[in-house]
């Protein structure tokens, strides 16, 4: 019995145990459900059993037999221009390409303003910029683009600048043709209270270059969005960005700032009314004032008095300098002055302007220079800007400066950028790519007519992982006739051709006498070409197609050089391919008494020019020299037979913002020129020097600022004049007296 009891007990125990296991199992299952992270249980898109059997979305035949049936493409294109007009204009339907044929096809004509026409300061600057640009023509027949003489900048009917009856007047233009090939500039459109995009006249098929453009009205690939600029915006040159140094860590005193009006009512008030919410008085300063317009007190609310007080406590300029990010909310219109202001101040703009087509958005990649916020997410802005790391701040900030300097610092640049964008559309197959627009030195200084290949420019070697070529072309400027075999030019030819980096020599024959026969020149290990320079001083910088290497060694016929000097300078140039690398230096200075720029050839501790009588530079500068610079400056050079070297230095420094580079030289340049040469030499003439001084001032006024930059250093071979055995030195010739 006892045993049975025990069996029963055992059985009960076993049953209990089984139950326990069962319940325990339940627990285990629950644990498993709870314990595992959800992501592992994500329901993925199923892997179908029959997915191999699924049909293709289209079979090959269908994809390849996509024939355009019926009407001829030509007719279709013509029909398009009837359908897609006005608000739906595109270049292919509203622009007459046949007006822009040929190499110089892009010409801009400005209608002469009528007598007594009231033209605002800003529009006068725009017209002046076009008139001075290399695209200007005074003949409407050869024009590809037309610009109105009527001031259309301010189309706010309440404004004093408003010009009435524009519609009737433009219809009077014989070439108006419903606006075809016309370019209309506008800064302000619409008026209180809606500030619509309406200009108050029929734009028709004209291209709009307009500030505060709305994406909905923007005709992509046709209109150009320009920035809003004030009437004090400089015509030329323009102030450089405020960033002087890349301080690290890059954060400034304030993280984010705004100081401006708070609209109590009307369009744009949604955002402006909310800006005060993010103000914390510490790192985020967002100040608003209600004080604007005549009747602000009517709409005044409880915050106004307190906000107005707080507003007075901070200075806008000081905030600009000391803030990392600047809020750029919409005003009544989408764009505002503060956009350019913060760009210049290297205060990274945080845009709160939904639907704003950003200036030159066709070509500029704004997400690398600004933070594009969303008006709807205003309260998220502080978190967003907090999350931007230091590395990114550093990059964004430098990019604001790059863009400011390349496209916005003057009216000239804004107008020229507009024209270049349109030109790139007209000649789309010879145009700049996005990298050219967004990398240093900016699109305006990269001429696609020269080449559209990145490797052909001196600016992109590093960013494309390339290095400059291993050879150079010597271009010798010859002015005196060939009479003896002991002339300096003969010696120079020998010296240069002996360099292992020299691949060809070009002699530019600029003498009164015709060039000598081929046999008169000594035999050379490299090809020698003689070209006619047509007795022009600027011809030395013509974009000779004969130059096949990236590096050019420009030489005067009487230059005295050693092969090792040439070799050393060339190697230095390969380290600095975007600069001029040369031997004899010169300097400019500001003469505060006469209030003009001075020029000096004295030995000084710093220099800003190296003479191009013996200098290496990239061949692209030949092209820039002859295409980018205005004919007037080149005429000045040709007329005086002087200053071409100064002009070249101006040009290169304006591109690089850096000084040229002087390299070591055995003895003073041109010292050894033959006595008879020195007598006739132009530089012995005191007038020559005065001319150069005048040149410096003339150039500075065309550039609108002084691009030359001083340097205090010279690059010498590593062991130059060191007290080691001469045998160890690679460039020992340089040290011979």
């Amino acid at each position: 019995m006892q045993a049975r009891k025990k069996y029963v007990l055992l059985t009960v125990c076993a049953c209990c145990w089984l139950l326990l296991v069962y319940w325990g199992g339940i627990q285990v299952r629950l644990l498993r459900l709870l314990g595992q992270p959800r992501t592992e249980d994500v329901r993925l898109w199923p892997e179908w059993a029959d997915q191999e059997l699924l049909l293709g979305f289209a079979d090959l035949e269908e994809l390849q037999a996509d024939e355009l049936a019926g009407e001829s493409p030509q007719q279709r294109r013509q029909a398009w221009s009837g359908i897609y007009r006005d608000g739906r204009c595109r270049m292919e339907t509203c622009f007459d390409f046949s007006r822009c044929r040929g190499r110089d096809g892009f010409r801009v004509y400005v209608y002469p303003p009528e007598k007594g026409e009231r033209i605002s300061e800003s529009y006068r600057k725009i017209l002046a910029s076009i008139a001075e640009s290399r695209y200007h023509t005074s003949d409407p027949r050869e024009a590809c683009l037309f610009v109105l003489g009527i001031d259309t900048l301010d189309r706010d009917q309440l404004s004093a600048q408003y010009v009435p009856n524009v519609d009737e007047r433009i219809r009077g233009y014989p070439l108006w043709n419903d606006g075809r090939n016309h370019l209309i500039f506008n800064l302000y459109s619409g008026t209180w209270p809606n500030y619509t995009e309406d200009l108050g006249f029929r734009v028709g098929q004209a291209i709009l270059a307009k500030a505060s453009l709305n994406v909905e009205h923007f005709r992509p690939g046709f209109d150009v969005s320009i920035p809003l600029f004030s009437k004090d915006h400089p015509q030329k040159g323009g102030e450089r960005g405020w960033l002087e140094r890349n301080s690290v860590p890059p954060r400034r005193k304030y993280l984010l700032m705004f100081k401006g009006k708070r609209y109590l009512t009307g369009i744009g008030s949604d955002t402006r009314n909310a800006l005060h919410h993010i103000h914390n008085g510490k790192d985020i300063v967002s100040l608003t004032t209600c004080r604007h317009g005549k009747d602000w007190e009517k709409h005044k609310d409880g915050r106004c008095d307190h906000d107005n007080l707080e507003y007075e406590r901070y200075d806008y300029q000081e905030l600009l300098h000391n803030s990392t990010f600047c809020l750029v909310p919409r005003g009544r219109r989408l764009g505002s002055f503060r956009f350019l202001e913060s760009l210049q101040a290297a205060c990274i703009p945080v845009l709160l302007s939904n639907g704003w087509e950003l200036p030159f958005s066709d070509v500029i990649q704004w997400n690398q220079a600004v933070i594009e916020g969303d008006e709807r997410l205003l309260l998220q802005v502080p978190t967003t800007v907090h999350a931007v790391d230091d590395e990114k701040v550093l990059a964004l900030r430098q990019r604001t400066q790059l863009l400011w300097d390349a496209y916005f610092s003057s009216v000239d640049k804004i107008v020229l950028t507009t024209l270049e964008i349109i030109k790139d559309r007209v000649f789309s197959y010879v145009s700049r790519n996005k990298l050219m627009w967004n990398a240093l030195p900016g699109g305006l200084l990269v001429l696609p007519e020269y080449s559209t290949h990145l490797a052909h420019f001196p600016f992109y070697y590093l960013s494309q992982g390339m290095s400059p070529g291993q050879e150079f072309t010597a271009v010798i400027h010859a002015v005196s006739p060939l009479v003896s075999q002991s002339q300096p030019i003969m010696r120079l030819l020998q010296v240069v051709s002996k360099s292992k980096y020299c691949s060809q020599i070009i002699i530019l024959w600029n003498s009164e006498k015709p060039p000598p026969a081929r046999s008169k020149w000594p035999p050379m290990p490299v090809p020698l070409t003689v070209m006619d320079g047509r007795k022009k001083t600027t011809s030395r910088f013509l974009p000779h197609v004969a130059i096949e290497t990236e590096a050019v060694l420009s030489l005067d016929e009487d230059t005295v050089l050693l092969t090792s000097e040439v070799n050393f300078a060339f190697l230095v140039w390969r380290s600095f391919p975007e600069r001029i690398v040369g031997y004899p230096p010169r300097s400019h200075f500001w003469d505060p008494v006469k209030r003009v720029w001075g020029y000096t050839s004295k030995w000084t501790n710093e220099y800003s020019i190296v003479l191009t009588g013996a200098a290496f530079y990239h061949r692209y500068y030949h092209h820039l020299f002859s295409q980018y610079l205005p004919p007037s400056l080149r005429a000045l050079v040709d007329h005086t037979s002087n200053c071409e070297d100064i002009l070249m230095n101006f040009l290169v420094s304006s591109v690089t913002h850096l000084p040229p580079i002087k390299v070591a030289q055995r003895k003073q340049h041109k010292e050894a020129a033959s006595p008879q040469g020195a007598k006739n030499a132009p530089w012995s003439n005191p007038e020559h020097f005065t001319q150069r001084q005048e040149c410096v001032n003339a150039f500075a006024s065309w550039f609108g600022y002084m691009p030359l930059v001083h340097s205090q250093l010279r690059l010498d071979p590593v062991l130059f004049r060191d007290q080691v055995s001469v045998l160890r030195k690679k460039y020992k010739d340089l040290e011979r007296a």
Partner: protein
Amino acid sequence: MSALWRSSERAAAACVRALGGPAAKWLSRIVGFSMCASVKYGSRGPALIPRMKTKHRVYYIALFSVVLLGLIATGAFQFWPHSIESAAEWSVDRRSVHDAPLVRLPANSPIPERGDLSCRMHTCFNVYSCGYNPKNRIKVYIYPLQRYVDELGTPISSTGLSREYNELLSAISDSDFYTDDVSRACLLVPSIDVLNQNSLRVRETAQALAMLPRWDRGTNHLLFNMLPGGPPDYNTALDVPRDKALLAGGGFSTWTYRQGYDVSIPVYSPLSAEVDLPERPPGPRRYFILSSQTALHREYRGELERLKEENGEAVLLLDKCSNLSQGAVSSRKRCYKSQVFDYPQILQESSFCVVLRGARLGQAILSDVLQAGCVPVILADSYILPFSEVLDWKRASVVIPEDKLPEIYTILKGIPHRQVEEMQRQARWFWDAYFRSMKAIGLTTLQIINDRIYPYAARSYEQWNNPPVVQWSSVNSPLFLPLIPPRSPGFTAVVLTYDRVESLFRVITEISKVPSLAKLLVVWNNQNKSPPEESLWPKINVPLKVVRTKENKLSNRFFPYDEIETEAVLAIDDDIIMLTSDELQFGYEVWREFPDRLVGYPGRLHLWDHEMGKWKYESEWTNEVSMVLTGAAFYHKYFNYLYTYKMPGDIKNWVDAHMNCEDIAMNFLVANITGKAPIKVTPRKKFKCPECTAIDGLSLDQTHMVERSECINKFASVFGTMPLKVVEHRADPVLYKDDFPEKLKSFPNIGSL
């Protein structure tokens, strides 16, 4: 298996808890129930078993086996359900497309409005559902598959779910973008396949879209379409009414494309998967221009024929084959007169390939052409190129207006040869990265939308457009703006010292004479000894700070101390007393002209040792320089951050462990990120072997050189390349050694030994 183990262990623990048997405690960790049961049995057993009778033994054993069996059964029952369940899931996974639930569309079910042309992200897109997100990544939800039929039971689409759309959805589902939680989704992708409008019934598809549970007038919905429009007008966007939904479409024109809202995608070419075209190395190609489209309008064909007449062999104009042998696929063959060519292989034989518009603007041939590394010549007025929002097509293609077709030969001849080769490489790279599969197309589309929603975290132009080769070799310096910082506020000298107080004080006195010195920072690297009392330090005109370090590490010298308030840092050893004030001031001036470089005094070189097949360190008087020693060097404070926080690999630890080579590491770092050589300033001086401070005795010199060489090899392998650049120049003052009165020179006292 491991899950089973885990659960059995837990069950055992439960058994222990229930029984409370102390002896069982340790067992629960190791084994499952059966052991537990026997333990329980065992705990009472010893008293029980000896008294057991034989007749009971049978019963007992039987009972025990029953219990055991029961246990096993229960166990199985316990753990089967799971497997059964997951097996059920698994079988669901393997179900057929035809098992998807059927949805019958009522004839009068609502139809969405036609796409609103004015839609933009800020008007039609609901950003609140994306919101702020620390990863800056949108979440995408995919609707489960359903089969839609109309009231009569006819499906709304003739293909149903297509192979391509299925691939696309799987790719999204496998990506980081995917979420299965519709409430967390920022973007919703219907599983209704609208890739090809021709296989759709437009009205019914629209109704099906409107029936989606979260449709909400199409807000945040993304549709993929490659072949829009239908005969005879061929609209350039999908004709299916779709409210506010975003459209990723192939073949947009400028009039239907909503910039910044829609995404222009390529038309996928099934040949991408069928044909393997290896990348063709650069080199001459047989033809200059090739036209391989079969369905060209006769007007275009006429113009191309004229082009062929003018330019002969350079132009190859292919057409359909009229008399193909049996078994050949006509879509894979092209003919010129009687010559037969394989398509798409023939595309690789030409430099340029014409891509003309057909009835639609987007052509699948574009993908084939890119795959072949042939530069597409695109003639399709108003066409929005695929992914044009981020891809720079000018670097991979030539876009020519249609009416310029007769001039293409002249236009293309004007492109330099080297550029053509680069465009070919670029074209192939675009295909590799963005065209090659539905996955690539789908994820690129999502990335573009992601970039719009989080513009501050968007991928850069370089990331989108540079092929891997360029990405590897290119340099994008973080200090790219050409700035010459103003002379004030000067520089901060950082002196690393251990205990050579006397020498340190001399250095401090010497440096303090430099006009542009703003502050002196002494990094006291000796933990066993305190720095001398304040009164003992030399009296100088600029602030002097002493920082005590926690460990004697070489990298302390490059730490970005908050005390360094200037950009320019002069790193100097405590025994460099031979530099004159002029030399230091000049060094600072040189640094101002090259703020992104190391500017230092003693220069060094790395050389390739051909015998040993590795890098060698050289400190002899050479004509070249590739490094400057940081025993005396100016550099930007930014590089301190880089050194401390961004040094690749284990270089920092290596340096601290070997107590050597911190300067070589710095040279590597700067050269790697800027692509530029350092600048050595002023003539050679007799430095007291500045790099062997830690070593005494001359015999160690050899070991030292070996160690330094080892460093170079180690760093080169960590960087994966040799970033150092060799130059043959150094910087001197303009008038150095010129015949000029010393008094008038700015830096007369230079180079004295």
